[in-house]
């Protein structure tokens, strides 16, 4: 082996370039998702002021993956197909695989950052939780599951967008599937009756495996696209 030929200066420059291009293309989506955090914050403030609203913010926190799927994942590839700009993007010097990897890396970083910010907000702004940790609203907004779920929801949007090629199909369909999987998870948890961390770990692994499978599906769709 003559070293690692892919870690050349030029390759690094192009990798950085691909990430910049992906970021430039996704700024608006990043801003839209970031704008949800102040909304959650005002919700937490309302909850502190009015005890009757107790539990509202954690319940709404469960919708963040759906929002990421809708606003960020679904249009990520589908919009390139709709506007024809994939013909510009794929005839530069980046392979389609690298192009998709950069786009997904930027979106996943943003989605995880938003989930982290929401987690900090919930821990900091709400009173200490006294109830059952397996109650869905608490369970789905704490621990590892929200991070795994947001990555899964993002990749679901990306994959449905890449396969269908239309945002008007990808947005509602991937949102619907995100919700179906969320409810499926709740039903499984009720039946399995496992402890909090066992369930969290198992569910995290499951979501990440599904996300990986969806990433492969998106890659195949992008490679086959004429």
């Amino acid at each position, binding site marked *: 082996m003559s070293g690692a030929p892919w870690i050349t200066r030029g390759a690094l420059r192009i990798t*950085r370039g691909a990430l910049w291009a992906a970021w*430039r293309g996704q700024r608006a989506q990043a801003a839209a998702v970031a704008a949800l955090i102040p909304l959650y914050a005002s919700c937490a403030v309302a909850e502190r002021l009015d005890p009757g609203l107790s539990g509202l913010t954690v319940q709404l926190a469960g919708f963040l993956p759906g929002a990421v799927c809708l606003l960020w994942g679904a249009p990520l590839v589908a919009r390139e197909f709709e*506007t024809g700009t994939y*013909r*510009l993007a794929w*005839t530069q*010097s980046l392979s389609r695989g690298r192009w998709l990897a950069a786009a997904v890396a930027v979106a996943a970083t943003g989605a995880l950052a938003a989930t982290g910010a929401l987690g900090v907000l919930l821990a900091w702004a709400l009173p200490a939780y006294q109830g059952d940790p397996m109650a869905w609203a608490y369970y789905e907004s704490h621990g590892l599951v929200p991070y795994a779920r947001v990555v899964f929801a993002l990749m679901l949007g990306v994959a449905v967008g890449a396969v269908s090629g239309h945002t008007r199909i990808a947005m509602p369909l991937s949102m619907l599937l995100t919700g179906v999987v969320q409810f499926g998870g709740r039903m499984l948890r009720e039946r399995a009756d496992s402890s909090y961390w066992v369930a969290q770990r198992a569910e995290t692994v499951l979501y990440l495996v599904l996300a990986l499978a969806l990433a492969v599906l998106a890659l195949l769709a992008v490679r086959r696209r004429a």
Partner: protein
Amino acid sequence: MNALETEALGKRYRRRWALREAAVEVPAGARAALVGPNGAGKSTLLSVVTGLLRPTTGTVRVFGRPLELPGVAFVAQDKPLYRRWSVADLLRFGAATNPRWDGGRARSLLAAYDIDPGERAGRLSGGQRTLLALALAVGKRADLVVLDEPLAELDPLARVQVMGVVRELEATVLLSSHILADLVGVCDHLILLRGGRVRLCGGFAALLGAHSAATLEDLVLDHLRGPEPVS
């Protein structure tokens, strides 16, 4: 040496062949005009030789080697651009995604036609958008530049400007049009497609001599007459 060489190139969509048994040669340094009626397979051929479309049959070689993205620049039909990005953003995009990028060349082309780097791509005129797409191709410093209908929907002044840039490109050029007259002054090679098949391919002078035709128009019209070949 041929800048572009295809062998038995074919592309089938479901049951219809858009391109069949296409053997094309473009020598290095040539300005090749790809002409033919609408639906003859021009866009399909250009998409296949730029790697956007995978051929059903056959091979593409660019300067004797299999196609590699950095070696070929493509201005696709309708000049796709990120319309919300500024001109400067699109140049940075070119720099970010191409290892051989030469920003000076791209910027001076835009400066020559007074295109403001701060303007959004979506607010440019058709001619300016074409020049911006050309600037991205120029900056890429590819050895082969492929343009799909670059003159479509342009006013006469913009056509002259765009063909002026094409004439000055330091690369082998392959461009398509359905109007032969636009290309005659700048090009020296002709590829005529009809019904997905290559009917003529060669230098202007050689083709005229071989078919003892007086003008290119005569030659092209001659090969467009009669029933379309069945593919």
